[in-house]
């Protein structure tokens, strides 16, 4: 009897496994169901391999999308897929210059697109744009996009820059007139990145009162790009197939298959094994291996540079207020060696926060050299000497020990170890700490950086590339009890604040360049930010792909020209 029971248990377990297996293979069918109700579904179920003649490019992402909707996505890996299936008003080429996509031409003061006082921009749309379900794309879609981004019932990731727009007029289907509160100079880099299909989403909004739960966010079957969304299986892959109703030049590759892996090691393994054609964000340590396997490695500047942000206020170490100390910090680290050894010489030390925007870094800032003797001299001059012979300098009874924090990424931890050692050689002590990204960047009250618990904060950031706009150092952004959401965790320099505010309203490129140059100079002279290494996008392209170009803003801008050579 007991044997029978045991037998039953075993059989039950086997049945459960079979069911589990059955459910597992049924899961892709479940995710297709919402697809079927919204648009003509593509027939191919997940278990069938693609047809023999179809050209499929396989991409490897190390992070899975959170959402595909421009309203709700918060990840670079989600945003860049929009060049496959959605459309931006204009895109950026390999030199990061804007070119019109949905517009007939880019608005400017010369062609009357931008008004004299800079508060109104008029855009003329092409008349042949269609959504993938053959509906025309009109100015109504633009207006709807703005409304949805700024509607408080939508829990959008960011309402910027649409919250600067006071109103939009649509005199006809091909004209959009945008009215701003004040001249908004970063408009080219930030506006109209993903247009929403109003004919699909407005009914959803009217019915539910919000777009938060729309199925389109996770399964956007209607788009306007060269490809159309097909399927997304959580944790495994996503697939985009050719848009039969594409209004532009049809793509040469039939299908894009995006595979999700958990970390860089699996990405590299898949690329080396030839299982994939494209990888993104390649760690420098894997580059030699990939080159050996026949991959082409391309770096594309995207504005990002890894650097040290300094906190200079009442919560920071008193030494941070001393310019000599900051200069010593810049000169005590052998940044060239770090780039050469840790990053295999593939990047350089950025001297300016606007390093990737040569137009605004003109004349280019110069790096403080690696000079420990000079650093020592500067510190001595500033009065920081080692009076108690414990290895670290001090002044007025305060030891020069700075708090240096960053996230847990391996290369940052490596840099921390190197920096600790080299700073010790000039008598500066550091307390190192690492935090998970969501804690490190947490706001005032929770995050160590926001709370003033760190003197040196390290991460990789960019101005509003390809625009030079910055907002971190605005005095109004300082995080305090009254303003806990503030993004300024650094300092308030009145002169700098005035310049930053000025540049964001200057619609004339030359006037703006002058202002930014002044800002650049201030950053250099006051050592407000120290660059460690450039952080361009690093792509690994397999030997099968041809015609590949990348942009730092819209990486897949020429996806229709990519082809697979067998």
């Amino acid at each position, binding site marked *: 009897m007991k044997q029978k029971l045991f037998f039953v248990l075993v059989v039950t377990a086997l049945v459960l496994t079979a069911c589990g297996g059955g459910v597992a293979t049924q899961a892709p069918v479940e995710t297709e169901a919402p697809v079927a109700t919204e648009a003509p579904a593509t027939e191919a179920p997940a278990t069938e391999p693609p047809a023999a003649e179809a050209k499929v490019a396989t991409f490897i992402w190390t992070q899975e999308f959170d959402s595909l909707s421009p309203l709700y996505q918060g990840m670079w890996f989600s945003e860049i897929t929009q060049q496959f299936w959605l459309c931006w008003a204009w895109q950026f080429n390999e030199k990061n210059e804007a070119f019109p996509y949905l517009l007939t031409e880019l608005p400017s003061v010369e062609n009357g697109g931008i008004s004299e006082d800079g508060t109104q921009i008029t855009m003329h749309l092409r008349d042949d744009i269609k959504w993938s379900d053959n509906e025309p794309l009109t100015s109504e879609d633009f207006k709807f996009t703005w409304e949805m981004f700024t509607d408080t019932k939508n829990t959008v990731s960011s309402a910027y820059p649409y919250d600067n727009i006071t109103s939009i007029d649509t005199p006809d289907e091909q004209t959009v007139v945008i009215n701003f509160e004040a001249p908004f100079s970063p408009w080219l880099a930030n506006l109209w990145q993903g247009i929403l299909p109003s004919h699909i989403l407005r009914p959803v909004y009217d019915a539910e009162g919000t777009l938060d739960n729309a199925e389109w966010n996770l399964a956007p079957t209607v788009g306007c790009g060269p490809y159309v969304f097909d399927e997304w299986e959580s944790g495994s892959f996503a697939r985009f197939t050719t848009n039969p109703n594409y209004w532009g030049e049809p793509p040469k590759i039939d299908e894009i298959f995006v595979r999700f892996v958990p*970390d*860089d*090691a699996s990405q*590299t*393994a898949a690329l080396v094994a030839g299982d994939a054609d494209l990888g993104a964000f390649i*760690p420098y*340590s*894997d580059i030699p*291996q990939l080159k050996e396997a026949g991959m082409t490695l391309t770096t594309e500047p995207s504005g990002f540079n890894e650097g040290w942000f300094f906190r200079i206020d009442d919560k920071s170490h008193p030494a941070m207020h001393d310019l000599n100390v900051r200069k010593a910090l810049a000169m005590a680290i052998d940044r060239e*060696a*770090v780039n*050469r*050894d*840790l990053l295999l010489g593939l990047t350089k030390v950025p001297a300016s926060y606007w390093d990737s925007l040569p137009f605004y870094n003109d004349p280019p800032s110069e790096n403080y050299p690696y000079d420990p003797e000079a650093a020592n001299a500067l510190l001595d001059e500033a009065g920081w000497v080692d009076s108690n012979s414990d290895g670290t300098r001090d002044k007025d009874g305060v030891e020069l020990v700075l708090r240096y*924090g960053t996230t*847990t990424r*391996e290369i940052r*931890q*490596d840099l*921390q*170890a*190197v920096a*600790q*050692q080299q700073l010790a050689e000039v008598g500066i002590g550091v*307390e*190192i*700490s*690492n*935090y*998970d990204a969501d*804690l490190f960047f947490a706001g005032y009250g929770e995050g*160590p950086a926001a709370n003033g618990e760190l003197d040196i904060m390290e991460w990789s950031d960019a101005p509003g590339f390809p625009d030079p706009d910055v907002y971190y150092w605005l005095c109004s952004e300082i995080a305090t009890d009254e303003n806990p959401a503030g993004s300024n965790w650094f300092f308030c320099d009145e002169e700098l604040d005035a310049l930053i505010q000025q540049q964001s309203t200057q619609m004339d490129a030359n006037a703006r360049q002058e202002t930014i140059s002044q800002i650049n100079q201030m950053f250099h002279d006051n050592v407000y930010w120290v660059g460690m290494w450039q952080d361009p996008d690093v792509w690994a392209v397999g030997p099968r792909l041809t015609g590949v170009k990348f942009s730092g803003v819209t990486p897949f801008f020429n996806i229709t020209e990519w082809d697979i050579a067998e």
Partner: protein
Amino acid sequence: MNMIMESTSPNQLVALNMEGLDTPPLTLSQLAWRRFRRHRMAMFGAIVLALLFLYSFGGSLVLSESYANHTDTSLRIMSPSAEHLFGTDSVGRDILARTIYGGQISLLIGLTAVVIETFMGILIGALAGYYGGWIDSLLMRITEAMLNIPEIFLLIVMAKFFGGKIPEIEFIGRTFSGSVIVIVVIIGITSWMYLARIVRAQFLSLKENEFVLAAHATGTSNVQIIFLHILPNSMAPIVVSATLGVANAILAEAYISFLGLGVQPPTATWGNMLDGATNYLESAPWLWFFPGLLILLTVLSINFLGDGLRDALDPRSRAI
């Protein structure tokens, strides 16, 4: 992560051996030691463990800590050679030296976490077992609640909760980052449940014994009864559990450092050395092999040791 079996009162052990011997009866500890010695694997475990302690703590006399932390990016990821016996890591630090200092931390974490968990386990188990009634119910409900969540989930949640909030401390001449204390505390907090149940079972059975009734009759206070009378008689399973708890704590630290939530670099532990090495699985196997091997040896020898202790102190659970 191991099963502990319940034991008898050691009094019975001595009684068993009183029959018909021509040598004077051995004391309890002498008897236990004899049984322990016969357990070959346990002796092996004890020796290996002693060697590992020597390696970690004695090794620091040979190689200084600054040598272990010395980075030289031009020497990164070099395979084992005469100069660097275990090779170098991604910033050029000597792996042998790092395993020595990492071993100190891993072992310390193991030992201190066990102190915390033993203390909590005994306290809760004793109170629940001795007083019974609603105290027992409440404490057991809490114990069950914590047991119902798999340890690793608790560890992850706790690690994020405490993350980055504790400053550095100095101990035996080294500065430890606050994350070491965090790890010790969270491992201690998530592992006391097994011991609490065992202690409670002991107290439940022992509190009806005559010596306890006698103590009551003479007016001994409850606290004294718990700690001076009952507890010493239940030491056997506690000792075994504590020993195996060290192994569990070292493994837990390895798990959580592997997931990136434990002790943060540049402080080395065997667990976080393994985390950094997964990217170099094929290209630099020495990065993960040596720390992994050391963890294995430590845990293995502790398990042997614990097995031997269980046999020595608790004869009923095994055929001799």
